[in-house]
């Protein structure tokens, strides 16, 4: 389960290798960008709809458990507890997407903050923050997770908070690498000579220049976080058992693959589709975000 968690870190690390992934964006054909944008729009719509449908989606009828795909009235069949897979998938979008989005955003913010400090100040600050991110990488996720679950009760948002911290290790590393690169540039030295405060230099001057990189990584993280968030539920964390959530559906759907494959494949495809869409749109958007990217 921690594989999903750490994989994001991996991506980040990879990008951090030289910190300029945004520059050489992939050229996706317009069609796939359009499809991806549509998909994301639908996902947002589903998130907005999910409070409306969730009551109906969560209503169990165990007499109708595990209806196969294609059943009239239950096009994608039903799950173990007799809930409509289609409705459940729509209702699950909120929990599956909002949290991961916050995780990606939160870890990016944390990464920007600590990474900037480490990359700009170097010395002791750098060493401490560097070791901190090493620490986060070496800590057994299960252990931290069960402690959070035990001490704080392990609600959804606690889990999101935990994942923000764990994901941030990689963000810190990337941002640090990029800020180090920027900090040596004359424009930063000019700002120093002007006597600007280091906070102003870090966040007013350097930050806008490393933002595109942080955003790329954020998009990748968002995809990982969807799976990561639900992979912790066996520890009593995150998505509560029985709630509408793609990751949860994925875990529960494995057992009834033979009865109703849709219970497994619907959430799996949704996760993959959203992840792909996020990345395609990210690749497409990034050069447009890069300020002064054209020279």
């Amino acid at each position, binding site marked *: 389960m921690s594989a999903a968690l750490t994989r994001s870190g991996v991506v980040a690390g990879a990008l951090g290798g030289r910190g300029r992934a945004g520059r050489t964006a992939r050229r996706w054909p317009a069609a796939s960008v359009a499809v991806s944008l549509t998909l994301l729009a639908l996902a947002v719509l589903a998130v907005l709809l999910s409070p409306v449908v969730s009551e109906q989606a969560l209503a169990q009828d165990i007499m109708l458990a595990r209806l196969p795909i294609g059943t009239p009235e239950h096009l994608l069949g039903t799950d173990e507890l007799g809930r409509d897979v289609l409705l459940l998938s729509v209702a699950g979008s909120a929990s599956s997407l909002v949290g991961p989005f916050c995780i990606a955003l939160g870890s990016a913010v944390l990464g920007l903050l600590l990474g900037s400090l480490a990359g700009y100040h170097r010395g002791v600050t750098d060493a401490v923050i560097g070791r901190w991110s090493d620490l986060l990488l070496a800590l057994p996720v299960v252990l931290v997770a069960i402690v959070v679950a035990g001490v704080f009760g392990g609600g959804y948002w606690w889990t999101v908070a935990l994942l923000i911290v764990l994901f941030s290790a990689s963000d810190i590393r990337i941002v640090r690498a990029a800020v180090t690169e920027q900090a040596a*540039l*004359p*424009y930063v*030295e*000019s*700002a*120093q*000579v*002007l*006597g*600007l*405060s280091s906070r102003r230099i870090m966040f*007013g*001057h350097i930050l*806008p*220049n490393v933002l595109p990189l942080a955003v790329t990584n954020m998009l990748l993280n968002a995809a990982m976080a969807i799976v990561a968030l639900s992979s912790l539920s066996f520890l009593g964390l995150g998505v509560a058992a029985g709630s509408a959530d793609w990751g949860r559906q994925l875990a529960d759907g494995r057992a009834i693959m033979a009865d109703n494959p849709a219970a497994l494949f619907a959430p799996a495809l949704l996760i993959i589709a959203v992840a792909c869409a996020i990345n395609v749109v990210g690749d497409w958007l990034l050069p447009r975000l890069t*300020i*002064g*990217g*054209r*020279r």
Partner: protein
Amino acid sequence: MIRVRDLSVHRSDGAEIVSALSFEVPDAASLAIIGESGSGKSLTAKAISGLLPEGLSASGTITFGDLTIDLAAPEAEWRGLRGGTVALLLQDPFTSLSPVHRCGAQIAASIRARGTRLSRAELRSAVERSLAEVQLPARVARQYPVELSGGMRQRVAIAAALAANPALLIADEPTTALDASTQAELLELLGTLQTERAMSVLLISHDLGLVRGRADDVLVVYRGRAMEFGPAQRVLDNPAHPYTAGLRASEPSAEVRLRRIPELAALPLRADSCASGHTDCTPEHPAVTTIEPGWWVSCTDFGGRGLTDAETTVVEDVPVPEPRDVLLRVDAACRSFAGKQALDGVSVVVGRGESVGVVGESGSGKTTLARAVVGLERLDSGSIEFAPRTPATSTGARARRARGVRGRDPRTVQIVFQDPYSSLNPAMRVDTMLAEALAVGKRPASDVAELLSAVGLPAELAAARPHQLSGGQRQRVAIARALATDPELLICDESVSALDVSVQAQILNLLAELRERFGVSILFVSHDLAVIRQITDRVYVMKDGRVIESGATSEILTSPSHPYTRALLRASLHEERTA
């Protein structure tokens, strides 16, 4: 004879960057292409070696003897021609060699690319021969580029290019990144090689001084159009085209100081109202007037402008005493990096209102000194003291916040760096940048317009971001930012080295003007003696981290006492004198 016909380069949106250039390079002769930055010199070079970057396309032909190549030919065709027929040497020796391969291997690659099968030993001796040809010892073969100086790297690059045995060698500003003495040596070498190998050379430069005496013919381009073509010597001595004349005039001289360096005005290229009376003159194909066989100029509707008084007035050399009203005093400054003494007991004084130069070859410690003065570098020992008019109050959070690096008061000293591309924050608008600096100087943000006009920039540029500006414009913004705090001392570290002559002239004039208007003192760091001559009153000559000589600029540059200074001077004057 190598002939280029109707060479044009187009952007994918159709815009023409280079228009119908035609020229020829006789066998075993050399042609220089000169022009300002952005005039299309490099694209021309790339077009005739089939190396245009993506998004650009070429048309026209190039003929080598009886082989004619369409410049629009596909990569596959070009691949067979490059190396043996035409080879291109790039401007920057620091990036044009692969950093992770040994020099020998890079030269060997060119030899192998010709398809000749050689044993290891044969290959090694071939590499050694190549190195010897560019006057490098055989050991260089085993070294990595990083272990070599810029000049040596460029020699390796030349060896690598020549190992392919090209009929035409294109050298695109091969020495711009190097200091004066190295420049001279390299060009010397290129000249020798050209005669020895009887090869044709196309030398690209924005520096007329360099070309003088090192090319048989010269082609002057402006905005992708040919302005003048002719025998180098005669064209440079006696330009027929006003643009060529302007270029020549804006070159600073190390010998006399002018009140104002002549600037090149933009040329109107639209021939809609051609005053020359040519009937077949169009903007695309301006009419050509032949002055004598092998020397022609193109028609431009050039209003013409004589030089102003200031631009011809030679400033009298007057004795400059040591200043009494001292603003900056650097005393016995020492700084070493990893055992190398970058500053070794340097003492420098700058008086109020004075303009002081620091010269020296690459690595002599000039930059380290400049950075130490503004606090970007710490000293191992020695002191740096300022005597500002208004000492910064040492109390209050506000005062503390206004403190620059290492306790420097940003309202006392500011710096302008060499590279106009990296010294501005790419993500910031010009006005934000300036307003921020103004705030440090406790000036209102509304002064942005005033600041812009002080550095000669139009007010519209306030909303621009750096990538929308030219190099010259960027450097002006950098100067404006430095001036925003009303500093008493402005440090310029090679602030015009990256600019071409015309822009350089503008910036130097601007600095002189600002000094007059605001009474700023200037500490100007440069390896270019001519620039130092034009802008400073006194000069310090540095070598290996020490000041070896100092005094009035006019004196030092006319009668240097230290042999090193004499050598420096000789190297820089060499270019002008070879004429």
